[in-house]
């Protein structure tokens, strides 16, 4: 079964996401901070990464996604980015318009419903 890495500084979100994913048999690895997350990605070679935007700094998630996509060993891992800052930064992180500078495969605003989460995860893993 696919291995998924969750990187988010909000332990509750991590827990909620983890429970949902594990219920479908996915193996879940977690990290509560961007740099640790990147390290874990190198060690664990997950099949998918769920990444938060605002962590230690307000755009740490973006930096981590850049690092991931620029590392040839990790660049093929799909990234599902979760954010709670989409609207108030003015739709600037809309996937449709900013694909070029936002190297993620999917961008979802928090909270994500379990059904949608599983669907998106399933789709991203299938595309791989």
């Amino acid at each position, binding site marked *: 079964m696919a291995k998924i890495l969750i990187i988010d500084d909000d332990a509750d979100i991590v*827990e909620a996401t983890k*429970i949902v994913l594990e219920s479908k048999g996915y193996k879940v690895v977690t990290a509560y901070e961007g740099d640790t997350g990147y390290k874990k990605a190198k060690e664990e070679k997950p099949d998918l990464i769920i990444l938060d935007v605002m962590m230690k700094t307000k755009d740490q998630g973006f930096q981590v996604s850049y690092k991931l996509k620029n590392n040839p060993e990790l660049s093929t891992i799909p990234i599902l980015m979760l954010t709670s800052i989409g*609207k108030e930064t003015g739709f600037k992180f809309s996937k449709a318009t900013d694909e070029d500078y936002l190297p993620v495969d999917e961008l979802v605003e928090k909270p994500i419903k379990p059904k949608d989460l599983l669907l998106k995860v399933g789709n991203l893993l299938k595309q791989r």
Partner: protein
Amino acid sequence: MELLQTKVKQTTEVHEEEFLERLKWFIYIRWATVVFIIIVSLTAINLFKVILPTLPIFLTALFIAVYNAIFKLYLIQLRYEFLSSASIRRLAITQSMLDILSLIVIIHFTGGAENPFIFYFIFHTILTGMLLSKKDSYIQAGIISILTIGLFVLEYMDILPHHTAKGFLGINLYKNPVYVTTISFAFTSTIFIAAFFTVSISERLRLKERELKEANLKLLEKDRLKDEYVKMVSHDLKSPLASIQSLLEVLLGGFAGPVDEKIKEILQRIGKKIEFLHHYTKDLLDLSRIRAEKNLNLKIFNIKEVIDTAAEIAMPKTEGKKIQLNVEIAKQLLDIEADKELITYVFLNLIANAFKYTPSGGKVLVQVSQKNSSITVEVKDTGIGIPAQDLPHIFEEFFRASNVAKTTKGTGLGLSLVKYIIEKHGGNILLESEVGKGSSFRFTIPISSK
């Protein structure tokens, strides 16, 4: 703090730019001076029959023209290079010294102490006083006085030959000790008083300028902090709500074990309240953010793209109801120039409202047409409508129509912001509605809001 420092640095650069601007201005004045020297000399010689040594005068004028041209070329090739304020100061002082020397030479050849044009040094003092520091200005005034008095004394003592402007003054005033002393005193005091006034005024101006710049910097910094603050608060308010919602969803979905019907119902009630709180927070933050924005961030964009984005974001508002959305855009209409984010917000609100208040099986129509230099957008639904007595208040902040205030959740902020945004773009919005039949919002904005 880091930002503040870089900005402070910028202001000193601006000051140096001004400095260079003034130096360029001086170059023009110097050309005018050359022309003036030639015209006055020729007039004196030809019209008033004054006898002047034309060769040295014109040679000096030529000398001024030559170094002026050199400075001009120097400034041109300098344009893209960085220049420290110290080197600009050196440049200014060099020019000023050359000016003083040239003028002294001309004074020497045109009558020395007898030449009333010596008082033209006052202009030199004023102009450089505007540019140089207080100390430098007084040093300049000192140099001018010493050189001028030195010239008078040397001519008086016959160490330097005296060139009388024959035909101007018949008597040899330069040999009259009372005259030389008086003119020296009058001249020196004039130069120093001029330097004093110029320095005091320009110092006060510079101080005011600096104060204004600092105040402006502080304002910019405050503005930035406020934006940061709104963003942080927004994140900090919404994050815990998102966590609660996620955890609730886990419980409701039975991912943490079976949930019986009664508990499920209570969890759903909690979920509804949290969702409302989430929505309310978002609306309040949108309100403060959009209201705080002073200028429109104008961009050229495709209107269809914005409608598509808005419709996509509004989709959850259908809550599974079957609602048909039709978008009709006039063919020739491609791009408009407006604040993309705000116009998206307008469409998002109008479409989400239409979805929210239209029962399953209903229709929502978005029509965009162009007339002259403006576009008209109509968002029309077959929803529950708005009671007639509520129509005049519907765009007021926090107002909610009487037929929905009890039954559906909402903040009453969306439409007030929509109206605000449209008016900010120089447009207007109208509403037609009939209870039970539906509502139609029609707004007009210029194709370009420049």
